[in-house]
Structures are given as C-alpha cells and as structure tokens.
C-alpha cells in the first residue's frame, strides 16, 4: 500500500472521527449543557476508565453473548443457504418462513425465550443468532444462485464430482456475498445481545448497568456504556472485514501467491483460485 492509500484509508477516518469528538465536546461546553443531561466525551471516557473493574466483566459477558450468537447465526445461515440452493423444494417451503421470522419483532420473542431458557446465556444467543442468520442465508443463497452455470457445466464435462464442483467453483463464488451477510449480521449482533439483556438479566449485563445509570442521572455512565456497546459492534465488523480481506486474495491480485497454488484442475494445470 502506498502512502496515499494509507493516508486515505487510515488517516482520513481518524481525522473525521476526532473532529466529531471535538464537535461533541464543544457543543456541551459552549451550550453549558448540565452533566446530568449529557456528558462531554472526556467525562464519558472517564466513566469507562474509572469503572473499568465493574464494566469489564459486563463487557466481556456481552462479547460472549455476541460471539456465541454470531457463530450460531452464521453457521445456521450458511447451512440454510446451501441446503436451500441445493434442494429447491426446501427453498420454496422454507424461504417464506424465514422471511416471517424476521418480521416478528425481536422484543416480542425475548420474553417468551426468557421463560423457556432462563436468564443466562441461552436467550441472548438465540436472539443474536435470530438476527444474524437471515442476512447470511439470503446472501449465501443469492451467491449460489448466481454462480456461472457454464463453469459448472465445464467442470462436470471434465469429470468433476459434485463436491469438488461445490468447493472449487461454488464456494469461492459465494464468499463475497457471504461476507456481505456476515458484515450486516456483525453490525446488528450487539444490538441483539443488548435487546436480550434488556428483556431479562441477572446482574451480568451492560444493558442493566446502563439502565441503572439512567436512574442515577449519571449521563457519563450512560454514554460510556453506549460507547462500549458501539465498540463491540465496530470491532466485530472490523474483524469481518479483516477475515474477508484474508479470504478473498483474488480481489486484490490476479495471480495466486506461490504458497497457495495448491488447487490443480482436472487436467493437472494450475488455476487462479476463485476465478469464474
């Protein structure tokens, strides 16, 4: 990456983010906004740092809910996507049901889930997975439905077995849409976890901590908690971008790296991975 690209991709977002923080600080200071209504960014940061020993266990619990829920949602989403693309009757019967699941307000299922599963990790994981699986399913399904049929036909003509066609042609063609779904899911995963925590918690929850801070008129604590929740969502999104970057080298270079030239074609020649 040359210097201009580094500047464009890293420095510009940092500058714009810093400007936003500065603007926030100025609005609070110039507007003489009382501390119990809205804090300065510095006060919010201090509310995090001075209560870190309390907040870290709550944050790690929310991360745990997000990780398990996201993992479950991603796996279920990929499985549904693949199965529905391979079994058309399943797609016809299941797709409307999946759409209905997303039309159900999450807050409406949160309470019944608590009654069924209790107050610990279970309901939160289900809620996060519920949110994550749908965009993954839809994107995987779209990816698989739009694979170049000529390529599949060519592979079959050359004697490829279905599983090899799937792994060499269909999977690489699905990775980009898959990561689109995963990125959407990553953004919403923390929202799902917080909704689950708001529905019912037994002490270990950022949402409950935030609710208590609202009652205490501690706006710095409220904003500090919001910053932590946002940081979890952002981190998860950035992790997905990094994974996508690593999993799609062909988007940046047209020739595979030497060490990764392991996929031979049926006629014993090398092909560029993922090429359609």
């Amino acid at each position, binding site marked *: 990456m040359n210097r201009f690209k580094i500047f464009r991709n890293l420095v510009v977002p940092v500058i714009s983010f810093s400007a936003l923080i500065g603007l926030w600080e100025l609005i609070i200071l110039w507007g003489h906004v*009382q*501390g*119990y*209504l809205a804090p300065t960014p510095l006060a919010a940061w201090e509310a995090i740092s001075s209560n870190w020993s309390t907040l870290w266990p709550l944050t790690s619990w929310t991360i745990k809910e997000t990780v398990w829920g996201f993992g479950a949602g991603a796996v279920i989403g990929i499985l549904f996507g693949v199965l529905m693309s391979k079994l058309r009757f399943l797609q016809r019967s299941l797709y409307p049901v999946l759409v209905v699941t997303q039309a159900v307000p999450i807050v409406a299922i949160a*309470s019944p889930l*608590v*009654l069924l599963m*209790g*107050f610990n990790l279970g309901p939160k994981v289900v809620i996060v997975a519920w949110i994550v699986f749908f965009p993954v399913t839809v994107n995987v399904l779209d990816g698989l439905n739009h694979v170049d049929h000529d390529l599949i036909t060519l592979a079959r003509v050359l004697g490829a077995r279905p599983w090899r066609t799937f792994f060499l042609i269909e999977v690489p063609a699905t990775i980009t849409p898959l990561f689109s779904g995963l990125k959407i899911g990553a953004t919403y995963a923390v929202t799902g976890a917080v909704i689950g925590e*708001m*529905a*019912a*918690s*037994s*002490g270990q929850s950022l949402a*409950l901590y935030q*609710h*208590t801070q*609202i*009652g*205490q*008129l*501690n706006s710095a604590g409220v904003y500090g908690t919001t910053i932590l929740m946002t940081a979890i969502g952002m981190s998860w999104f950035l992790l997905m971008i990094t994974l996508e970057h690593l999993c799609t080298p062909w988007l940046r270079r047209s020739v595979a790296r030497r060490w990764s030239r392991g996929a031979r074609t049926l006629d014993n020649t090398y092909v560029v991975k993922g090429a359609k």
Partner: protein
Amino acid sequence: MKRRILSGVLASTFLAASSLVAISTVSGASAQLTTVNFVYDFPGPDMEITPIVAAQQQGYFASQGLKVNIIFPPDTSTSSQMLTTGAANIGFITTSDMAVAVQAKAPLLSVANYSMSNNWGLFAKPGSKLTLANLKGKKLFSWGDTWTNAMLPFVVKKAGLKMSDITVVTASNDMPLLLAGKIDWTTSTSNYGVPGIFGATGKNPVAITGAAAGVPNVPVWVYATTKSYASAHASVVKAFLKAVLEGTKYASAHQSAAAAAFTKAYPKSGYTAAYNKLGWSLTVPLLTNAKGKYFVQTDAQWSLLNQGLVATKQIKTAPTPSTYYSNAYLPAQ
C-alpha cells in the same frame, strides 16, 4: 307585517349576538387554561394515577384554570430527566429518584408527598415460605429502578447477608417469571404486589413489607417539579396541588367509582377492573399521615432516607432535608 319582519330581524340579530358572545366566552375560557405537562413514573398508566384522572374528570383542574396533559416516560428511570429538560412541568417520582437527582445536582424540588409510608417489600406466591432467614441464594425480581436498587440493600443488610448472596433478576414483567418459578420472590409495593398475585392466583400472596423487610419508613412517591418552574409558576403549582387534593379526596371517598373511572379512561392499560379496584383500595390508606393530612412532607422523612442511602452507599453525601422539598405550595386542608 313590517312589525313582524322587524321583530324577526331583531330576534335573529339577538340570537346571533348571543351565540357569538357564548362562543367567544367558551373559547376565551379554554384560552385561559394553563397547560401543565404531568409526567408519570411508569411507561404506562396504572391505578396510582387515579387522583389525577379524578381531578380531570371531575373538572377540578379546569376549575383551577389548568389543562393537565399526562405524559408517560419511555422507561421507569426517565421522569426526573424529563422534568429537568422541561419536557414535563410536574411529575410523579419516587423519593429515591429525588435523592439521586439532588445528588447529581439536578434542580428538582419535591412539592408534596403522594404516599406517607413505605409499603415496599418482598412478595411470593401463595403458600411459599418467605422469610429473611431463607433469603440466601434466592432469585429476586427487580424492575431495575432507583427505588428497588435503593431498598434491596436494606433487606439484605437486615438478613445479615451481602448483595452477592442473592441473584437479582431484572426483566420487563415479574408475574410470568414468578408463576413459572423462574424467580423465587418479586419486589413490589403492597398496592401493586397484592392485586398482581391475587389476580394471577386467586389468593393473597405471602409478603414481607416495610419495617419487617428492613426498609426505612419513608414515603415512596412524591409530586415534584424543578426549582425554576416552582418559583416562576408558583400559582400554577399551587393550583395543581389544590386540584389534585380534591381529586385525591374524591377518589378516596368514592373508591369503586374512581377506580372504575380510571379503568374506563385507560381501557388498554393492561390491568383488569378488579386489579384497579383492589390496588386503589390498598393505596388509599397510604395517602394520609397520622393526623389525616395529605401531601405534608417533613424533615424527618428526608433525613431518614438520607441516612439509609448514605449507609448503603447509594449517595455519597446527605444534603439538608430542606434541599429536597417545600411545603409552601400545599393547599389548605
């Protein structure tokens, strides 16, 4: 004939003039009403708002020149902030809300007690064994509000335990969890806890409330406003409390009718008419002090709350009681 036409014209003119006068009087009267935005302490209506509903329906607010809009906050912790931002003029909050607001330097002023004693405590299903001796290891429901957060440490202290000895569960509704056995006991006040469990099971709950639960005997709810609103609109605050006093007296004297009027005013509140009637009948005895007076606040009540909240480390310093309240706006009784 001319005389008949003339008398007809005169009569029409008189009628038209009378109508105009009447219309202008009515519109003038409505224009003279001062709007007061009243924020409740809960996101939805419940029977404790009966005095306000009675004052609206019996015309007590209108006769004081007020038009009162009832606002429901987005959650159980936002009413104080709505007062400080001016989103509401007068509100209904807990005394612990007042304490934390004053601690956060929010300029709130309690202008009248709603209730006079502490009827908060622990509630369990009929037939349950509920004693402080077997509190250890129990799952207790909390609304996550300031009042419950303030009171639970007193219960735990009285039982000789620490907060870590119990599990506090916070959710949007306690009754399904209690009935499903997901929690052992719930926390509530007697006027909510009893009708809630009675309505669900047909039997009275097992309960420990007030001093038996180790909580200080302080009023639970107050009417509050901001210091700036009280000083700038003293007559409005006084008129509001006068109308509310009339509403409270009416609703206390006609309990069934007042509860029915609340049910009719808020048919989608989620509470049954039986719940509202029982809840309101349990609320009425809480509204007067030993001398039979409504609203009157004392230094002693705020000192006691201060001591309790400082002892359980929920506030750092104890302001003087006069920081919290004023009886200057109370109507004559």
